[in-house]
């Protein structure tokens, strides 16, 4: 009991929100491409590029937000490359996504060595991290409030963006046109809505959020860049997108689940469990959720019951 209490306490909640934020940001980006009918496994690479250039930008501009802006721009460049290949040149989206992920991994390591002369990571006092916020009223609400009132800003933004993305997708013309481009391109084309342009825009919006996710990793979550530091979060986001069909609210719940698994695994490490095993937890939870939810969405072979038969027969008559 005591053990459970030490595991499940206030700091676990705050850790969950902290670990949810990066995957939520990148998954929110993916909602745009998912709705636009693009299967985007390039999220991972966009996030990694975002993380790397955010650190670089932070050092160059000596400003955390300058770093975020440069990280986002870099991720959007990758996103644009993705959509040029997939939409304009009609290349296979899995192949292009895979190639860009590999490119991101290789490029960040190459540039790290070229610029900093180190292998694998950038740790430097010159990196300006994102400041913690201090929200006075929330901070005064006991220990939970203290934990929730002093995150770095992108964590709050991530949760606010759920609503923003929802409004963009379901209530604006842009969102409507993106959805139509994904669901029924022929309808869009016949009314002069440029589906290609919509898909490019969706991809760029995706890059924007993936870049924010990356910047949060390297400037908010911790203040450093490490080789492959996105460590599969982009792929987890793709899994979330598959079973949420790109709906921002469902995306939020999916991401909270993985954030919780992530936070729990970090917590479990302090109990002397093998860190390697504990680190598998988020991946296993993602895989488990993916399998379970696609099992539930499986096409069912229906058999009529006596009642349903009667109903259909009556309808007919």
């Amino acid at each position, binding site marked *: 009991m005591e053990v459970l209490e030490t595991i499940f306490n206030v700091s676990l909640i705050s850790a969950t929100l902290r670990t949810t934020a990066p995957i939520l940001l990148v998954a929110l980006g993916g909602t745009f491409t998912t709705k636009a009918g693009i*299967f985007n*496994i390039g999220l991972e690479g966009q996030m990694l590029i975002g993380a790397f250039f955010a650190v670089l930008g932070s050092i160059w501009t000596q400003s955390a937000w300058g770093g975020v802006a440069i990280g986002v721009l870099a991720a959007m460049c990758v996103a644009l*490359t993705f959509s040029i*290949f997939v939409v304009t*040149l*009609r*290349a*296979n989206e*899995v*192949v*292009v996504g*895979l*190639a*860009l992920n*590999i*490119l991101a*991994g*290789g*490029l960040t*390591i*190459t*540039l*790290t*060595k*070229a*610029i900093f002369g180190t*292998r694998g990571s950038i740790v430097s006092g010159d990196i300006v991290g994102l400041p913690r916020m201090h929200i006075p009223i929330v901070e005064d609400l006991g220990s939970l409030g203290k934990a929730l009132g002093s995150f770095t800003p992108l964590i709050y933004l991530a949760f606010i963006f759920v609503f923003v993305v929802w409004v963009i997708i379901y209530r604006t013309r842009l969102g409507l046109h993106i959805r139509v481009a994904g669901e029924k391109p022929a309808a869009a084309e016949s009314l002069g809505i440029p589906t290609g342009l919509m898909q490019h825009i969706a991809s760029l919006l995706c890059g924007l959020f993936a870049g924010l996710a990356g910047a949060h990793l390297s400037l908010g979550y911790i203040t450093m860049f490490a080789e492959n530091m996105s*460590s*599969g979060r982009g*792929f*987890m986001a*793709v*899994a979330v997108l*598959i079973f949420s069909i790109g709906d921002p609210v469902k995306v939020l719940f999916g991401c909270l689940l993985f954030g919780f698994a992530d936070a729990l695994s970090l917590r479990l490490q302090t109990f002397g469990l*093998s860190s*390697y*095993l504990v*680190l*598998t937890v988020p*991946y*296993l939870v*993602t*895989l488990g959720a*993916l*399998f379970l939810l*696609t*099992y539930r*969405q*499986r*096409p069912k072979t229906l058999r009529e019951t006596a009642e349903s038969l009667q109903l259909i027969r009556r309808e007919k008559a």
Partner: protein
Amino acid sequence: MSTEADTTPTARAGRQLPAWLEGLLGQMVALVIAIIGGGIIVMLVGEDPILVFTTLLRGAFGSSERIAGSLLQATPIIIAGVAACIALRGGLFNIGVEGQLYMGGFAAAFVGFQFALPAGLHMVVALAAAVVAGGLWILIPAFFRARFGTNEVVSTILSNYVAILLTSYLTIDVFKRPGGWSETAPIATTAYLPQLFDFSRLNFGLFIGLALAVGFHLFLTRTSTGYEMNTMGSNMKFAEYGGIPVRRNILIVLLCSGAVGGLAGGVETLGVHHRFMEGFAPGFGFDGVIAALLANGSPIGVIFTAIFFGALRAGSLLMEVETNASREVITVFQAFIILCVSAQVLLRRRRDSNQGERRWRF
């Protein structure tokens, strides 16, 4: 009567280059563009591209030792590439070759250091263990893909992370050699794959890879089952309509793909490292997938693309010593090639109808 529709395709076919030649030309153009793109990146990081490329070439082919080194690097890529080809030709993606390779590598090492068996037999049993481990590692994603249509791209990618962490756990927390680095005890010499030359660790695994590639090619073109699999990969709905048991075949194709992926790891362990080391084969699985894509799913083509990638790897080692460029430059280069090929072949396809194309084809 639409006479022009009846005669022109024939006339057009006569003017076209043979498909394989046109494909090859396409890959060559892509390669040239990728070399230019890679050169620009090299310049951006402040190196001389000519120097970097010549160093790469010298590192890959500069002497018989270096050529053997290239083939040594190519060996696991050929096998992993065949693994990826198996999935691709069945119309599926196995991006989890990396994970299967780790599991296979560990399983082979485990049999190698845990049991005492006669020479030769020991090796065969260890390789069999690698095959089984690779197959088991893809079993759940394969089952869910076949039965419920769960996207295998994501499930196999994510299982890579689990495999790498799990083998690290087994190596460091369970089977760590006392006093050693992050590695298991060495395997018994009875399980070694024979070396081909005394100046290189190049081993019999190369022939395993070549035999697999040629064997898979013959399987696809000559056997009834290969015909069914290839048809399934070209048009899943046609295969289903024609009475091919598609769901069962999806399971079998992915299991075989995973098993060969496991074998790649076993060969690497038994032929090169003679123990399991954490991070013993970084990226070989991914290189295999890319090699298979670059070869457009052709197992014979994989032999060449894998040797090409192996040479790049071997060359990059020398390049890192003699220049300031990081060896990861070659992954950037590989990514460029794949991007160029994906777009370039596509440009060719846009002339034709793109219906009924393979799902993965680019």
